[in-house]
């Protein structure tokens, strides 16, 4: 027997959509038996339209502030049933056994089969209490809005759909859900009455979710009938009409409804946990909105939370009411509520969206509060590169950029096969990677560094970048270094392509520019020489150029220009962290640009871009400002003697010189083509601009070429390495050629044949030949002599273990300078020097006394020398191959040194016979032979000492100038300095725990300042978050 269906329409300023709704109702295959419209004080012609079709008796007026649930209740309770003429034939007055209520919004339109499909579902599944429609976009959209809804642990209304997910029948399986959208919801009348309809505390948001949840808790089934489709305009959410049933602050109301729904429906024991989670989640979300420059949304979050917490009576009443109406929870909601991790997934999605939008730097906003940015498939720009009618894999692989990347990647592996295997990449300017990326983090944040005799230098911020990359590689520092050096060419190619894609139209020109940049002679040279700074800078340079170009070209969009300037500043900061000279170039180019462009240059944005690096690189930027020599260094050992450019011509040809660098003639074709690019008139402005930048870089390179820098840590001097400047010169040349070559065929084909066409052809061939020649040279090159892979063991394993013991003895490694034959020494502690440690090494002058001891040791050792070594905490002396027999014999004869073992046939080890460790407690006589070694843990000495009859001295084998504090049993100790500048403390005769810690000074405050600066820039550079309210589609 056919059930009785009462359709209830709630209208509220719904004039634009009501005609469609009524038309849709008229075309229903199964008409509702009764139909009533409740108008909540519409100010338009909604009532008139409804009365025209349904008749005045079927339209009930209600207050404007009435909520959706209350309006339904109002309509069901007070109005007489109205049956318009067209509808009256549908079995009115029949003896229906089951009565259903069909809820309809005034801004929806059900498909003609909707009600029939709903009832068919009801027939097929007799126990069902609530049936929902598949809700799609208005007016006949294919994108899904909901196919059943649920709720997450934060109160978020979950549809399980991607943003604007197309309806392809993928969700058409009938299934039980927690709730369904109130739009098109079919409810058994007895259930509606038993559950007292929608909760009046939820006038607008989460009413449907709460109702479904209550039904489910009652053991009633809520299902979706996918065949029943309703199109929904979501007028309220889209701001197409006002909402009067909820407070003015709808954001707060949304959150309040979300938390209320959670707290009144969760199990009793989960209420405290849910409350705490709500508080924490609210704070996190509020912070996120603040970072997303949406303080209003952040306030909504907090206001919503307080709105719930301020009225616990409502929670208690709501729970009590549910207890009465629902009875004991039947545990049927299990599996219907969203998994616990759903909010976190959304959080990650949101972060990814922000990062993506930040990277784009032109996107003005991202949307929060909805499932976002998961559109898959290629973008428009990418899709144009995809050949049509091929398999996906083949399409991807035959995409020019992918093909170029794969080719250079494969060639990287072939060329660098000597660098594969066990051990770590090192040699040239590159120190081996640390055991884990945490080393970079700790080095960066520590106020004091256990390098050599100890250092309190500000760590360079490139360690922070490496540390971030280390997160990507799951803490594997070696992998970061391997990727950067082994795959520098494909990375640079990809990076250059990302830039070219935006500015170059012609695909072939783009690919040419990217490959030519990836195969820059200076890059292959820098890689072979282990120059970390140059390698990273070359890879990142196009990324910095991208926002810079946007900033300069973004006329008319101040917000995009502002964020592009910030992004340029951020990239310039990263470049400066690796190669400080990048900042000089930035300032130089800006100055020239200002002189040339005058008022046309967006000066305030350029200035902003230059201020950002100085700000976010604090405190290192201060060190840089006060130590001019640092401008000429870069990440890695700048003074490595692997060579440099032979002449200024090398620089102009993009050749950094030195070991492993490709010859300059490879890029001669590009240089010629860059000169020829000035001939194209319609691109002359861009080309001239690039020439100005390139010449500025060349000037910088020539200056570096002439500049001799002294490494403060080792005292060695060498020519400054101009690799970065060279890469900018070459990059500008390539960009000039690409700019002039892009679309060059059109003007030539229009012009009559003359000298220009042959010249252009020759230039094109020359330019095109550069990457081909570079590729050929690279393929036959044999890196691995300077940069090599080996086990980074400065000392034998057992000594390394001893160095990591609480005593922390050091090792003196003796060697011979290959060029001069002079003795050399290295003070090894812990695992020895690793990537980045050289940047925080103490100045060479602090080793003068130790150098004198070493000089005596290798020439005319005395019995005091071993004691001197012990006073430096040196427990071992190691001499690597080639062992100088006469020196070894002298060490053998030095009182206080004993042969300790053999590292390999050509290396020898001596143990210092005296107590050796980082912290030595000396008796009143100061005799080091009777010293007690105290235990240290990392930088801190922490060891109980026994009483003594006389005062003692604590000799800490760290430089006193780095600042130390000591306490014995909580009482501070007076500090001093040994004759060689090591830290000492006067220790009284008493016993107690002796604790020595580095005095960080202002380091922490500097770091906090830096964190604040980075946060400020990140917030400023991030796109604004735009929030779309959920929970109501009315």
């Amino acid at each position, binding site marked *: 027997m056919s059930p009785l269906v009462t359709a209830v329409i709630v209208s509220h300023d719904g004039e634009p959509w009501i005609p469609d709704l009524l038309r849709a109702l008229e075309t229903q295959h199964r008409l509702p038996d009764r139909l009533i419209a409740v108008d909540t004080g519409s100010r338009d012609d909604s009532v008139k339209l409804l009365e025209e079709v349904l008749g005045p008796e079927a339209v009930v007026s209600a207050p404007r502030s009435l909520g959706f649930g209350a309006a339904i209740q109002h309509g069901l309770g007070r109005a007489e049933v109205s049956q318009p003429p067209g509808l009256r034939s549908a079995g009115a007055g029949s003896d229906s056994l089951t009565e259903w209520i069909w809820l309809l919004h005034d801004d929806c339109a059900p498909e003609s089969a909707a009600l029939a499909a709903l009832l068919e579902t009801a027939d097929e599944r007799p126990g069902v209490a609530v049936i929902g429609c598949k809700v799609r976009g208005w007016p006949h959209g294919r994108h899904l809005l909901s196919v059943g809804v649920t709720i997450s642990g934060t109160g978020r209304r979950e549809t399980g759909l991607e943003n604007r997910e197309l309806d392809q029948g993928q969700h058409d399986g009938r299934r039980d859900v927690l709730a369904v959208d109130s739009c098109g919801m079919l409810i058994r009348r007895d259930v509606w009455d038993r559950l007292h309809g929608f909760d009046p505390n939820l006038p607008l948001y989460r009413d449907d979710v709460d109702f479904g949840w209550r039904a489910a808790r009652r053991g009633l089934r809520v299902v979706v009938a996918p065949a029943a489709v309703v199109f929904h305009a979501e007028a309220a959410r889209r701001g197409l009409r006002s909402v009067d049933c909820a407070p003015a602050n709808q954001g707060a109301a949304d959150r309040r409804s979300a938390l209320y729904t959670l707290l009144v429906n969760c199990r009793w024991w989960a209420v405290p946990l849910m409350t705490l989670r709500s508080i924490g989640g609210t704070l996190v979300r509020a912070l996120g909105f603040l970072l997303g420059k949406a303080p209003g949304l952040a306030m909504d979050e907090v206001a919503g939370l307080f709105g719930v917490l301020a009225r616990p009576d409502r929670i208690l009443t709501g729970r009590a009411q549910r207890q009465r109406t629902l009875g004991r929870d039947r545990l049927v909601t299990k599996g219907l509520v969203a998994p616990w991790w759903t909010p976190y997934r959304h959080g990650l999605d949101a972060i990814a969206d922000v990062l993506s939008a930040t990277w784009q730097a032109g996107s003005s906003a991202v949307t929060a509060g909805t499932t976002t940015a998961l559109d898959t498939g290629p973008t428009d720009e990418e899709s144009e590169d995809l050949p049509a009618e091929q398999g996906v894999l083949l399409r991807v692989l035959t995409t020019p950029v992918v093909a170029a990347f794969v080719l250079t990647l494969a060639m990287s592996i072939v060329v660098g096969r000597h660098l594969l295997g066990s051990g770590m990449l090192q040699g040239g300017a590159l120190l081996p990677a640390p055991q884990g990326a945490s080393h970079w983090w700790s080095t960066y944040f520590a106020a004091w560094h256990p390098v050599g005799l100890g250092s309190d230098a500000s760590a360079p911020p490139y360690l922070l970048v490496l540390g971030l990359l280390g997160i990507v590689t799951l803490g594997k520092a070696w992998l970061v270094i391997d990727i950067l050096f082994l795959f520098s060419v494909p990375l640079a190619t990809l990076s250059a392509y990302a830039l070219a894609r935006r500015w170059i139209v012609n695909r072939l020109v783009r690919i040419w520019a990217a490959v030519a940049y990836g195969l820059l002679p200076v890059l292959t040279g820098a890689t072979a020489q282990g120059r970390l700074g140059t390698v990273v800078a070359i890879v990142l340079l196009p990324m910095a150029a991208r926002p810079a170009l946007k900033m300069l070209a973004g006329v008319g969009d101040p917000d995009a220009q502002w964020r592009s300037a910030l992004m340029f500043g951020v990239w310039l900061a990263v470049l400066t962290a690796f190669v400080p000279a990048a900042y000089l170039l930035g300032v130089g180019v800006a100055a020239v640009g200002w002189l040339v462009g005058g008022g046309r240059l967006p000066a305030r944005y350029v200035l902003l871009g230059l201020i950002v690096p100085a700000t976010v690189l604090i405190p290192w930027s201060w060190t840089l400002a006060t130590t001019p020599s640092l401008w000429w260094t870069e990440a890695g050992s700048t003074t490595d003697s692997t060579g440099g450019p032979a002449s200024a011509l090398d620089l102009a040809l993009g050749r950094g010189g030195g070991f492993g660098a490709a010859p300059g003639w490879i890029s001669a074709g590009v240089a010629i083509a860059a000169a020829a690019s000035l001939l194209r008139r319609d691109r002359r402005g861009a080309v001239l601009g690039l020439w100005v930048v390139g010449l500025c870089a060349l000037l910088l390179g020539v200056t570096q070429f002439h500049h001799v820098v002294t490494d403060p840590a080792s005292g060695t001097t060498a020519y400054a390495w101009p690799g970065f400047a060279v890469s900018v010169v070459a990059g500008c040349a390539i960009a000039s050629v690409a700019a002039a070559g892009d679309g060059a065929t059109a003007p030539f084909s229009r012009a009559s044949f003359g000298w220009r066409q042959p010249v252009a052809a020759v230039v094109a061939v020359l330019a095109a030949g550069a990457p081909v020649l570079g590729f050929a040279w690279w393929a036959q090159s044999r890196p691995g002599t300077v940069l090599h892979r080996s086990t980074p063991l400065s000392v034998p394993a057992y000594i390394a273990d001893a160095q990591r013991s609480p005593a922390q003895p050091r090792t003196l490694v003796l060697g011979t300078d290959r060029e001069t034959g002079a003795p050399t020494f290295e003070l090894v502690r812990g695992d020895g020097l690793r990537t980045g440690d050289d940047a925080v090494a103490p100045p060479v002058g602090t080793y003068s006394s130790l150098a004198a001891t070493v000089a005596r040791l290798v020439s005319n050792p005395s019995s005091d020398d071993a004691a001197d070594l012990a006073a430096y905490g040196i427990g071992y002396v190691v001499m690597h191959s080639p062992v100088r027999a006469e020196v070894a014999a002298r060490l053998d004869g030095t*009182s206080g040194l004993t042969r300790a073992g053999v590292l390999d046939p050509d290396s020898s080890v001596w143990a210092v016979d005296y107590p050796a460790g980082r912290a030595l407690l000396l008796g009143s006589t100061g005799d080091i032979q009777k010293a007690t070694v105290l235990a240290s843990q990392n930088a801190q000495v922490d060891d109980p000492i026994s009483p003594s009859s006389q005062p003692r001295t604590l000799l800490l084998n760290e430089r006193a100038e780095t600042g130390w504090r000591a306490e014995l049993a909580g009482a501070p100790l007076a500090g001093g300095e040994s004759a060689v500048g090591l830290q000492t403390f006067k220790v009284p005769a008493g016993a107690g725990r002796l604790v020595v810690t580095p005095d960080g000074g202002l380091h922490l405050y500097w770091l906090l300042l830096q964190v604040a600066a980075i946060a400020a820039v990140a917030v400023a550079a991030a796109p604004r978050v735009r929030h779309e309210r959920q929970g109501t589609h009315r």
Partner: protein
Amino acid sequence: MTAWQERRSGLIAALLGIAALLIVATTSSRGTPTLPAEAGVQEVPISDTELACPGASNDKTVETSLDLLAQALPAGANQPTEAAPARARILSAGPTPAVLRLSARGELATKRLEPAAFGSTGIHSVVVHAAGSLAAGLQAWQLSSALSGDDKGLAVGRCLSPADQWWFVGTGTKFGHIGKLILTNADSGACSLNLSLFGAKGKLSAVGLKGISLGPYSTKVLDLAQFAPQQGNLALSVTTTQGRVYAAVKDRWTSGLMPTGVDWPTATAPSTNLVVPAILKGSGTNRLVVANPGGSQALVSVELFGKNGRFVPKGLDSLQLDPGQTISRDLTKLAGQDAASVHLASDQPVLGAVVTRLNGPDHDSSVLGGVAPLAGPASVPLAGTGAVHLLLASASRHGGSATVSVMTRQGTQLADSDVSLEGGTTTQWELPHLTKHQRTRAAYLAIQPTGSIVAAAFYQGARGALAAVPVQSPTFTVAQPTAHLVLAGD
């Protein structure tokens, strides 16, 4: 002018400006990087000296004495300010009392060492250590004399610092000649070494020459006959593979079963230009021993620096030595009756020594190797043996001179005399006439050379006893290189 034209003009102006700067920068001179190691080597006063002496056993027939002397500093030389005495002690693993102390520079400390001090068994070396002001220029000599017994004869040895390589020539293992190698490790670490022996037929191979080890503070005596029996002329080298060692060779000669003499052949080093001032005036036999330790054939020219100049001994103008070969030639009839020195010039580094034997059936012998020219003031003890002859030779063409002073034990000069030498000549200097009182006070000779002078002292004792010791300038400074820091050596 349009905006673009203005901007283009500006760009071109900028290009020209930067290009001009580039030209200036490119054409400017380029600095030169330097390495800190280029600071070079500096001479610093020696502050710690350890010397080892051949040592002795507890043979009661042998009298052993030790002389310590810190050479007076050359004018302008610096010395460590820390004053500390030099101490001599019998080598032992444990702490042993000093047998002799030296407290002041210029003084000669002498001590006769009781046989009992050398332990119950074997040979024990004597080591001398000075740290501080007396380390620079410290010298020590050990003198052994016996009128009977196995070690009958006189031997004077110069104590030397342990090293990683030693060379000796002039020893042998043929009947009547017993050569023993005394190895001393005076350090706290173990020492291992290899021996190389060079005989008449070249380099000798034998079991046990490699990997000889010495424990800390130990002395080991090796009978060379066990490696190379019946070798009339023998040269050897000691090379450490770990640690350092002091090496001495003790040569004994017998006539039948009767001991006739003993000596410690001087340590030498291969060279292409050697002078051996070893031929005394008067009767006696002199035998030249030359060894070629290298891997190539050596052609050696021999000439003598006589009283009146250099000359080539008849029939001995040149020697040809195969790789590793040791040969000897009798110089007795060629040298004449005057003092002379042997000069060897070779195309390959060779070792050379002269074995001198006094005439007489039971008379002693001495072995003196090549002596380096004096680099500064030098001293040699008189040792109270009776006759001391000082052979002085001028190794250069331009000649030279030396002032020889007789000094008291306290460093007071008793007498002096100047010796002038033409180039390529040799002079045998004898003690000047001294009063009895002076004779009893005379303790050592101080030699101040001018030019290239080589010198050796010969001691003659009772019953034909003879010993020779090279006169060598002590070292006051050591070349100390500048050590520089490396951040990470690979």
